[in-house]
């Protein structure tokens, strides 16, 4: 590299560097700043101390997040496998079909389930026509899980599909050739090799599930930690910031723990 071009290349990244510093890094510090100060801007741990009242809520949110993640994994793995073994054109279409709902607004997706699950919704209407009594579905924990699974399902399919696609078909044949049955081929060959995809899928579903807001509120009539933060940030900015900080740390820790399971970094991008 000549000196001139290295100057030019610094110049070209400069706007982004400045931007990223100002609007990605600095805001993080403001979360910490508000978490460790009080209403008057003085250093205070009161916001932090108050977060301990929210431990049960954190645990509840993590529990919902885990449940949704596991269900997503169980539902998504087979479909990812089926797509990855289909003909190339079929693959493209199926993948597209799985991804399209993800591009729909989260609000609309959740709202759709709200109208369906309502006591006066279409399911109960059909049940009534069939002569069954109304089933109360909205505002139950089940509805919350359903909402989380529905909203984040494609995030699980995509990374698993990507890994399975790269999986060499001859590996499976080799395993069969060496005398493995179908189950053994799956547990000994396919599953271990698709682990990176599973890990990144879990991360991509768990993170938005735990931090979700609106979904639990609308479908479960309850507040998860995301909902509570959203309310608090406008009324008690310091407590809201402290909770956000805890949530952020929690999630970054779980991401790095998950990444320990696999050598591949990244994979976070859609």
């Amino acid at each position: 590299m000549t000196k001139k071009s290295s100057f030019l290349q610094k110049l070209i990244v400069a706007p982004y560097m400045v931007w990223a510093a100002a609007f990605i890094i600095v805001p993080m510090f403001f979360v910490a700043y508000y978490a460790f100060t009080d209403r008057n801007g003085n250093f205070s741990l009161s916001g932090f101390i108050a977060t301990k009242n929210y431990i049960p809520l954190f645990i509840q949110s993590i529990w919902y997040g885990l449940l949704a993640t596991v269900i997503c994994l169980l539902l998504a793995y087979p479909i990812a496998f089926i797509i990855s073994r289909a003909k190339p054109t079929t693959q493209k279409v199926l993948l597209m079909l799985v991804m399209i709902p993800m591009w729909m607004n989260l609000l609309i997706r959740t709202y759709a389930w709200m109208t369906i699950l309502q006591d006066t919704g279409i399911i109960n209407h059909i049940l009534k026509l069939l002569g069954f009594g109304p089933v109360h579905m909205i505002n139950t924990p089940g509805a919350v899980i359903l909402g989380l699974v529905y909203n984040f399902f494609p995030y699980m399919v995509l990374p698993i599909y990507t890994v399975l696609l790269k999986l060499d078909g001859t590996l499976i044949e080799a395993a069969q050739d060496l005398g493995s049955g179908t189950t053994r081929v799956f547990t000994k060959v396919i599953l271990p090799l698709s682990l990176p995809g599973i890990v990144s899928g879990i991360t991509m579903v768990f993170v938005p599930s735990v931090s979700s807001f609106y979904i639990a509120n609308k479908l479960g009539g309850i507040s998860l930690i995301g909902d509570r933060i959203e309310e608090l940030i406008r009324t008690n900015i310091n407590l809201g910031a402290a909770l956000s900080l805890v949530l952020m740390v929690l999630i970054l820790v779980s991401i790095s723990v998950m990444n320990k399971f696999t050598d591949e970094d990244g994979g976070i991008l859609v």
Partner: protein
Amino acid sequence: MKLKTTSKIYTSLILFFLYAPIAVLIFFSFNSSKSTGVFTGFSLKWYGELFKNADIIEALKRTLIVASLSSAFATIIGTAAAVGIDKMTKKWVKSATLTVTNVPLMNPDIVTGISMMLMFVFVGRMFGQKSILGFNTLLISHITFNIPYVILSVLPKLKQTDKHLSEAAQDLGCTPVAAFFKVVFPSILPGIVTGMMMAFTLSLDDFIISNFTTDTYQTLPIYIYSMTKKNVSPDINALSTIIFFTILFLLVLINVTQSRMESKTKKLDL
């Protein structure tokens, strides 16, 4: 054969799960009554009401303005950044930059939104203003979460581009800048276009981050939020239907442009 049938059934069930809510939503947007559970007759009156609603039209206009501006800025800053990042020779600088780029993708949206909101609030207070949240802060936040998508769709194209192309052009008499636009730019154009379209779509669709970074300047998702806060009503269905088909159109457009550009390069391979 048996496995194939099972696969087909499973795929159908998953697709049913993914599309049934959207189908129900669209279905009831044509309902003549207010119910979203019982279809009483075909009518376009909710659409009519929608177009009469000046607030919605205004929100739509604002959404388009923010999406266009933010995707344009993000594309310029992001493409320049990708070119610079690609040329970085110091490993730690490169990986540090990429890590910062990944932060908005890994961080829960709610934390990203809150962190920026807190900074804006702080800056506002510094200037003695109650709130500076509005168009400017919304645009900044959208540009910020859009840039990583542009960078991450341009970078792979740069990697695929022969490092010597630019040198060859300079060798034949181009200045370094001319060499970039004449030779490198055409080969990364597909990545730039994909990145820009993704940024545009994400910006159109964003609710969570916008929820924190704007106040009076309402975009469509925020308007929908306030609509669904109140109750269930078919005019939301009508609006959702329009949004669904718009997104569908955009996605198909992205895919068609992509495969067109790909087939162009593929033709070259023949």
